[in-house]
């Protein structure tokens, strides 16, 4: 058991990520505080997932520093990873294993000793107790998403990373997920999420960063970003209904061109 080391749960300083000669992330810096939902927004290929992957330790940055709960992601990788819960964009669990077996596996590798009753209680909380004996491959997309989220928070991590957590969900499931994310925030977790939904960012994020071409263009609360950009000609041009929204600001700042 290790003691927490700093107040900022996530510190990213001067992060640069390169794929060969292509620079996906350019000098990105930001912090995420406890009890905060931080949104990372950007068009396709803007560098969101690369930034998240570097934080998760899935790729080695060219330069820069990342500390999770004070632990350097490279030098103290296991402690940093133990301090975070992750829901990846394209992730899956072994389709042959049952829900209860997957929870047992992840509880085990996060150092938790949960018995069957405790696992069933966790499943009860997300309305999936009846799905406990089902194989993961037999679950619906929404159920899989709930399992993925519950595994990300199973070990009560200080930082939760959610990569497009609501993509592919129906409105009911999306609202339910927002409530779960907010409940995590209220418990003191720091949450960083990426999303393409400006509605989602406005609805749940306390602060957001808009990233494009690997660079952070702005960081602030959604309302402050709208207020500070509402008079920019490109934002006004992007407005569709007179009232300036976060989406108008986003389109104004990142351009109308469709990214691959």
């Amino acid at each position, binding site marked *: 058991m290790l003691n927490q080391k700093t107040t900022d749960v996530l510190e990213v300083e001067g992060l640069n990520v390169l794929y060969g000669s292509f620079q996906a992330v350019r000098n990105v810096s930001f912090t995420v505080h406890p009890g905060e939902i931080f949104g990372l927004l950007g068009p396709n290929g803007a560098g969101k997932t690369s930034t998240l992957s570097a934080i998760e330790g899935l790729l080695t940055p060219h330069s820069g520093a990342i500390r999770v709960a004070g632990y350097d992601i490279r030098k103290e990788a296991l402690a940093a990873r133990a301090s975070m819960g992750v829901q990846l964009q394209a992730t899956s669990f072994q389709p042959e*294993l049952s829900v209860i077996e997957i929870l047992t596996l992840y509880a085990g590798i996060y150092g938790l000793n949960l018995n069957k009753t405790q696992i069933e209680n966790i499943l009860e909380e997300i309305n999936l107790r009846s799905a406990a004996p089902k194989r993961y491959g037999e679950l619906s997309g929404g159920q899989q998403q709930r399992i993925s989220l519950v595994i990300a928070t199973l070990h009560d991590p200080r930082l939760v990373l959610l990569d497009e957590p609501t993509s592919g969900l129906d409105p009911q499931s999306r609202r339910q997920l927002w409530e779960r994310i907010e409940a995590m925030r209220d418990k003191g977790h720091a949450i960083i999420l990426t999303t393409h939904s400006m509605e989602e960012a406005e609805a749940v994020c306390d602060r957001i960063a808009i990233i494009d071409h690997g660079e952070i263009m702005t960081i602030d609360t959604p309302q402050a970003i709208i207020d500070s950009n509402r008079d920019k000609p490109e934002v006004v041009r992007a407005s569709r209904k007179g009232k300036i929204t976060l989406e108008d600001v986003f389109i104004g700042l990142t351009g109308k061109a469709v990214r691959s």
Partner: protein
Amino acid sequence: MQTNIPKTSTALYFLLQADLRTQWRNRRSSILVVLVPTIILIAWKGLVDKMGGAFVLSNCITVGLTAVGLMGYTVSIARDRDKGIFQRLRVAPVPNWSIMASRLLVQLFMILLMNLVLFWTGYYFDHITLPFAGYALCLLTSIIGGAMYLGLGQLIVGLIKNPESVNSTTRLVYFAFIMIGMFGILGILGDKFKEVVLWTPYGTVWRTLAASLHPSTWTSTTSAALGVTLGYALLFASIGIKNFKWNTK
């Protein structure tokens, strides 16, 4: 909220438990891995008197090791990589090596199981009886031979990302190894070809296994074959590990 790093042994225990369950649930492929050499062993009963029990049994074990390395390990690694299962495990506080170690331990179990099934089938159906030391040494050299085929499987998943391509390549290599290896060693393809086949990955493993089953027949050539097997294993594994990517993007 506290940071709790599990012991690597604990993590490995849970990984192994999950991997063994997955292997059991995929038992159709596991059965095929064991069934093919078993059928060959039964079908080659007539060759036992002509070529000797060790010759027949070692050929069948070599076929089984090829299947474990190529069909079992490689295909499962390619599938799990494509589905993002490894990436999810890699963001947990477990060393990367433990994820692979668990997979390899499952294959080690399969190698031992396949050997025991073939020993029993050989004894029961083909009346092959060998010294106890032969069986024991054969288990040991099977692990070395198995490591070579697992290395070959690692080479394939290292060089090819697409799981469909991995699947078709492993089947092709498996088929080629069995056909060329078995027919080559039987001498059906000519003496010169036989000499070449004996130093291929199929031939070196077969020669080592055959001598292991009858330890008294172990010669310097067998030791050389064992050395070449280890060399192949190191070569394949090092290229495979160097080129391996944990995701398909």
